[in-house]
């Protein structure tokens, strides 16, 4: 039951982000939806690494033999979050510059390239 919920929320968040991108009318909105889609991957990674009854993988006053959740999944999620921030900054810069050149943030109005 809980498994289905955790993994399901991860997939749902990914699809929600994609829906936002497809229906977006504003490139800044679109970039935020992209980071929503990416946040689905953090949820999935942490759900996979979760251990029932485990402590956080920081062994301050806890013996390393104590059951702990997966540090690898957390390390991957951490990297993933930094990647997300980086990507968001770059795409926001693109959106800002595109607004300067096209005078709009609406993807429907970006019409320099087609065919």
């Amino acid at each position, binding site marked *: 039951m809980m498994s289905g919920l955790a993994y399901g929320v991860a997939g749902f968040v990914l*699809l929600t982000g994609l829906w936002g991108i*497809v229906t977006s009318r504003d490139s800044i909105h679109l970039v935020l939806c992209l980071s929503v889609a990416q946040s689905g991957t953090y949820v999935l990674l942490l759900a996979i690494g979760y251990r029932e009854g485990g402590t956080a993988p*920081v062994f301050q006053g806890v013996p390393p033999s104590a059951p702990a959740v997966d540090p690898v999944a957390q*390390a991957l999620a951490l990297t993933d979050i930094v990647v997300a921030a980086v990507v968001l900054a770059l795409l926001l810069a693109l959106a800002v*510059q595109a607004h300067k050149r096209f005078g709009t943030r609406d993807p429907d109005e970006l019409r320099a390239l087609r065919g």
Partner: protein
Amino acid sequence: MSRRGRLVVFAVAAAGLAGLLAWGLGGLPPLGQTPPYGQMLITVATMTRQVQNAVSGVNFDIRLADTILEEFLLLTAATGVTVLLRRLDDERERSPEQLAAERPAPPPVSDAVRVWSLGLIGPTVVVGLSLIAHGHLSPGGGFQGGALMVTAGLLGFLAGRPRALPWGGGVELTEAMEGAAGAGIVILGLAGVAVGGAFGQNVLPVGQRGALASGGLVPLVGGAVGVAVASGTALVVRAFVAEALAIRRARQR
């Protein structure tokens, strides 16, 4: 495609993908069981490397390569954002003074915001430095500490102190710091090669778990990552506020 057509294509596709995801995600082990790799790395990080925070041990030692690539991803984005938002010839025609004269003056920052922001800068910086320094011992590390330092810069900006973000010659200095931190991580990795080992191999004594000087290279890599994250993020933020800063300075003159 029309907006409607796009939505129809996506609706069909998303239904299919949702079905696939349900089919595939259902094959994962139930929540609460962890993969054995992680449990093995806990032992490696805490016993062999004497790192108390296993996540830092994984990021800054065992899976150092990912972290190096990720730091350079940040460096790439900082460079990319600088390139994208640089002022071009057609925009340089008008000086910040002209722009300042043309635009309405901003609303003044209230004293409460100013005082609170300035007051918070000091503690934020201290906590950020502490996070970087203790990344191998407690939750936190180079990423979090570096990001917190930039938050301090944003607070200064909020308080009407634009110099809290890199400015003028400070931009080049920050670029130099970013480059030096990137090169520093690579050099730390090469230390292992210099002693005849593999790239990234630990060359320092690992010490006693829980001590500040423990974990071998882990705290040093964490420090370099902290500098890289702080300067890279600061460059990104600066690229976004450069124009507003220029106008604000022109107005103050």
